[in-house]
């Protein structure tokens, strides 16, 4: 038995290579959320369309990407697709997989948020002459945004941790770099503990940010507000 190596633990805790890995994890999260929100918004709009030609592909997309593990999706994109001549680098595969998978989840969150805005609000906006895009932009979206902020915050937390799956296709994020460093001195427990602490620090920081955002958006309804209606 080797026991716990404090010296090694602290050395890795401040290791530049790992810190950079954490930053890459952060970058992947920001990208997955941004791209996911963008794609997810359009998928949600398609899904809510009364035209089947739009809603059916959206339903199919959501069904596939929510119904299969990200791990499998990444392996198909990175190692499977080259077989039919479609080649992506590790980074491209990771970004693509994360964005597409996250978009499927976010589309459902966005759809729920938009549906939760009362029809009366839409009618009121139309009644003053707003065009459909203006109804969405000035009346529905701001109210839907407030509704989806809590689940959106949970998604960020979840994506932060989910990015570690990309290590399987050798994407050099936090977990992959941890595994690489283990080859140095085989300080398995110390290194994985350091990685866990990094993840914990990032999710905790996000939780604090999320609380502030929720407070800010709640304020727009006034101090006496119980709920929108």
């Amino acid at each position, binding site marked *: 038995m080797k026991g716990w190596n404090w010296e090694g633990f602290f050395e890795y805790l401040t290791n530049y290579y790992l810190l950079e890995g954490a930053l890459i994890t952060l970058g992947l999260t920001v990208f997955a959320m941004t791209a996911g929100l963008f794609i997810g918004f359009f998928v949600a709009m398609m899904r809510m369309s009364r035209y089947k030609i739009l809603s059916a592909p959206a339903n199919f997309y959501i069904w596939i990407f929510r119904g299969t593990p990200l791990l499998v999706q990444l392996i198909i994109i990175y190692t499977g697709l080259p077989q039919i001549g479609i080649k992506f680098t590790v980074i491209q595969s990771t970004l693509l997989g994360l964005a597409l998978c996250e978009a499927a989840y976010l589309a459902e969150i966005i759809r729920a948020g938009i549906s939760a805005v009362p029809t*009366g*609000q839409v*009618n*009121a*906006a*139309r*009644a*003053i*002459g*707003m*065009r459909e895009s*203006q109804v969405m932009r*000035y*009346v529905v979206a*701001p*109210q839907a945004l*407030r509704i989806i902020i809590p689940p959106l915050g949970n998604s960020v937390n979840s994506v932060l941790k989910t990015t570690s799956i990309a290590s399987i296709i050798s994407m050099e994020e936090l977990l992959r770099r941890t595994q690489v460093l283990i080859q140095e001195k085989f300080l398995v427990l110390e290194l994985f503990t350091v990685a866990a602490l990094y993840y914990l620090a990032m999710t905790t920081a996000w939780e604090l940010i999320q609380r502030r955002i929720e407070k800010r958006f709640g304020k*727009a*309804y*006034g*101090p*006496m*507000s*119980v709920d*929108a*209606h």
Partner: protein
Amino acid sequence: MQEQTKMIELQSVNKWYGPSFQVLKNCSLTVGKGEVVVICGPSGSGKSTLIKCVNALEPIGNGRITVTGVEVSDPKTDMPKLRSKVGMVFQHFELFPHMTILENLCVGQEKVLGRSPKEALVKANALLERVGLTDHAKKYPSQLSGGQQQRVAIARALAMDPVAMLFDEPTSALDPEMINEVLDVMVALAHEGMTMMVVTHEMGFARKVADRIVFMDGGEIVEIGGGDSFFDNPQTERAKSFLSKILAH
């Protein structure tokens, strides 16, 4: 009625919910410029549906609706543009909860009519003064009482300089003590010559300002009468029975 004085015209309007339930049956009605028409009738008679069809918030089955001569049901009609000329007040106010009172009054002016923020603000403040809510300009709708919110909603509609106003049970969701403050604004509006279609159960208001009363039952316009004559001398049994129920005490 002269052609140029017609503001709103409904010709044989039919509407169905689903394949079998007919909510509007052959409804025809002309509202002249400056006229106040009150629509009453038992609940489920199609009053609210009828008024929502006028600015196409509800589609009609067949028939024809024109507003200022423009056909509402024509797919080529620029509906948003037409709606911006017809103010609408809803039972549940429908102020935008994420905007202050002033923002509620300005958003349509700026985004739909293209007025400058300064121009919109002048108009908004004038209207707030008119409905007696100047002190509440910076508040959010949730901080106002129902009566106050409905007055803001009327001001929001008026901010668009509408040629006609539609009221869909504007006082039904209000506590009794707040009904009059809203009706007062509506009476003043009627006296200024605004063309109004009002769905309401407030028979006192109807008697005071309505040029004509439209009585609906089961999706049909059963009777159209002048203000006093409808109340004093209803022509149909259905109107008589309706009036005896609501005026009994």
